[in-house]
């Protein structure tokens, strides 16, 4: 999007005053998680926001641990966590567990899902799973420059409507879209933008009844739990970690934390 360049270079455009804080992560106000498929540019977004130089590379499996950094925006301090790139949150490999557990138990104030605009359908699988776990998310529709080259046009407003979360078209390598992304991160974190995330719907009746029944049971036992549906889905799959977290009360802490922050 070369036509925007003059705007981007203008100081007024960045008036939200992004301050890259690197690894200085003391006294943060909000926690931001960065999730998404491998190779969509998560680490590039992370580097743009924090000013750090987390190594990036054009292949899956580059980041397998969490990297953390910080930035300040609109006088609030944000801690941002770059999660391993994964295709789903349903399997048992260590990288997926790290990503899943952080979104579920780390209780980030915003989860930014970075997706590849040239591979939307496959990337949406991951987005839908994230939206089952958390209400507060922003979609960073990255690599729109490549999509354009490949003659792919995306109606980002319709996408935002379908998913119920803000959608920011971006080209992180050229730093396009970063100010808008920051703005939405701030709005969602501060509660100015209320997300209405899409839930996975199924055609299978027995599936829906089972999920609905379990969700109401869970909500009875843990009122205020933000991700009862995800917990229900995991219980129906027999996820030992979730079963344990119910037994040992970790899930209860989650609810408490949620009350305190909201």
């Amino acid at each position, binding site marked *: 999007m070369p036509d925007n360049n003059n705007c981007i270079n203008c100081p007024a455009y960045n008036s939200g005053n992004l301050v890259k804080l690197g690894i200085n992560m003391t006294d943060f106000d909000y926690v931001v998680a960065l999730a998404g498929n491998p190779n969509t540019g998560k680490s590039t977004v992370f580097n743009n926001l924090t000013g750090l130089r987390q190594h990036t590379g054009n292949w899956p499996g580059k980041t397998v641990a969490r990297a953390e950094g910080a930035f300040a925006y609109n006088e609030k301090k944000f801690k941002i966590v770059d999660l391993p790139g994964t295709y789903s949150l349903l399997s048992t490999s260590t990288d997926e567990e790290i990503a899943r557990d952080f979104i579920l138990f780390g209780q980030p104030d915003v989860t930014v899902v970075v997706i590849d605009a040239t591979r939307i*359908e496959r990337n949406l699988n991951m987005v839908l799973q994230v939206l089952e776990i958390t209400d507060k998310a922003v979609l960073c529709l990255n690599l729109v420059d490549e999509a354009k080259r490949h*003659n792919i046009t995306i109606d980002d407003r319709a996408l935002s409507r379908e998913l119920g979360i803000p959608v920011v078209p971006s080209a992180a390598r050229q730093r396009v879209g970063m100010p808008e992304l920051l703005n939405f991160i701030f709005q969602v974190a501060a509660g100015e933008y209320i997300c209405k995330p899409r839930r996975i719907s*199924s055609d299978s009746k027995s599936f829906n009844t089972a999920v609905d029944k379990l969700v109401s*049971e869970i909500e009875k036992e843990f009122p205020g739990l933000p991700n009862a549906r995800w917990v229900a889905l995991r219980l129906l799959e027999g996820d030992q970690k979730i079963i344990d977290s119910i037994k040992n009360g970790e899930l209860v802490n989650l609810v408490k934390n949620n009350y305190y922050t909201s």
Partner: protein
Amino acid sequence: MAETLNPKEKLLNTANELRWEVGENFHDTLLESIYKNAADITALTVNHDNKGRKYNFDSVVDKVVTSRLLGFPIMFLLLALVFWLTIAGANYPSRFLSFILIDNIHPFLKDLLFFLNSPWWLTGLILDGAYLASAWVVSVMLPPMAIFFPVFTLLEDYGYLPRVAFNMDSLFRKAGAHGKQALTMTMGFGCNAAGVVAARIIDSPRERLIAIITNNFSLCNGRWPTQILIATIFIGGAVSPHLAGFVTAAAVVFVAVLGILFSLIVSWTLSKTALKGEASAFSLELPPYRPPRILQTLYTSLIDRTLIVLWRAVVFALPSGIVIWLVANLTVGGYSIAAYMINWLDPLAFIIGLNGVILLAYIIAIPANEIVIPTILMLTVLVTGNDSAGAGAGVLFEIDSASQTGNLLISSGWTLLTGMNLMLFSLLHNPCSTTIYTIYKETKSLLWTFVSSVLPILIGFVICFLVTLIYRAL
């Protein structure tokens, strides 16, 4: 009974009952629903105009670089090209750095300390030990790394590495390992510790363990310079000059490929014995080719890789230089400690076609593979008393080109066999201490850490022994 259950257990019981009701295909139903939702949303929001011809560029390139016929030859050629560029380009800057750091700064500092009335042992420890070891590391390692890493990173950023993994995938599955091991192995070409951590992308613990144990067979950053230097001297030196560059590059590629071969053989053996099981399936996405941002790649690969590896080498070279100077200068009964150790290691070393100096160097250099060559050179000067190029016991000397290094080694009794076996041993020996620690952190098992550390060195002994037998029989 139901009344005595606490609510949590009741909840879990309900969940269990519902699981029975929904049946085994819950997971599939869930995945289907996710895919269907994703497809619906995509249909509503994305419009793909297929007329563009650029979109096909990727698949055309992919057809060539991952083809059955051309995939492997292209891979070998690209690797050889990278090495050739490194070998051809590194010589002059190496000479220049050595001229500055060793020919000029070292004598200047020596005069300065002499002027300040520093005692001889302090001058020796600081200048002839610590300073020279570091200066040597910088002048020998910086130029090849400054060429190798950016070129390699360009390939990586363009998206070639996943294609390598794609080519290797079927081989790894046949070896009973996970196809993703091809990715962790490629990662190991940069750093084995990183490769071991990258094994987290593998789902099954069995296959993950195989990937961790065999990662050391990928030549890492610290070992490329050894391979390149020794190949230049002994392999390149054995053929006519106009072929030398090509043959040297081919020799290094050969050792790297040999490492991949060992990776496969050991994986196969493990999956048939201690770690029995079937290989699991997975899907590997070939990312689109992305034009690398050349300047940024040059910058980050210089900062992230070259300088970090170099810094690590210098950090380890400083104390090692001191240790080497000490073992070379502390004497017991008229002989230095180093001389005792080398004499003691020599018989074993002779059997496997190496020498005591090399084995001692590998013991001193456990913290970092990067300092093996400097250590060997320092010890060689000491044990042979060959100070034509330097200034006495345990002192690094001025070597401003590969050919001078070669002259020194050859005059100390090194042969083509020593060179070949050193290259093999550099591939097949214990991982550096950082990697060993990382393996322990990832596996949480002393047994597997021990296996990963000892297995390669045993294989190394056996292979070097066999090569020696054949070489001496000819």
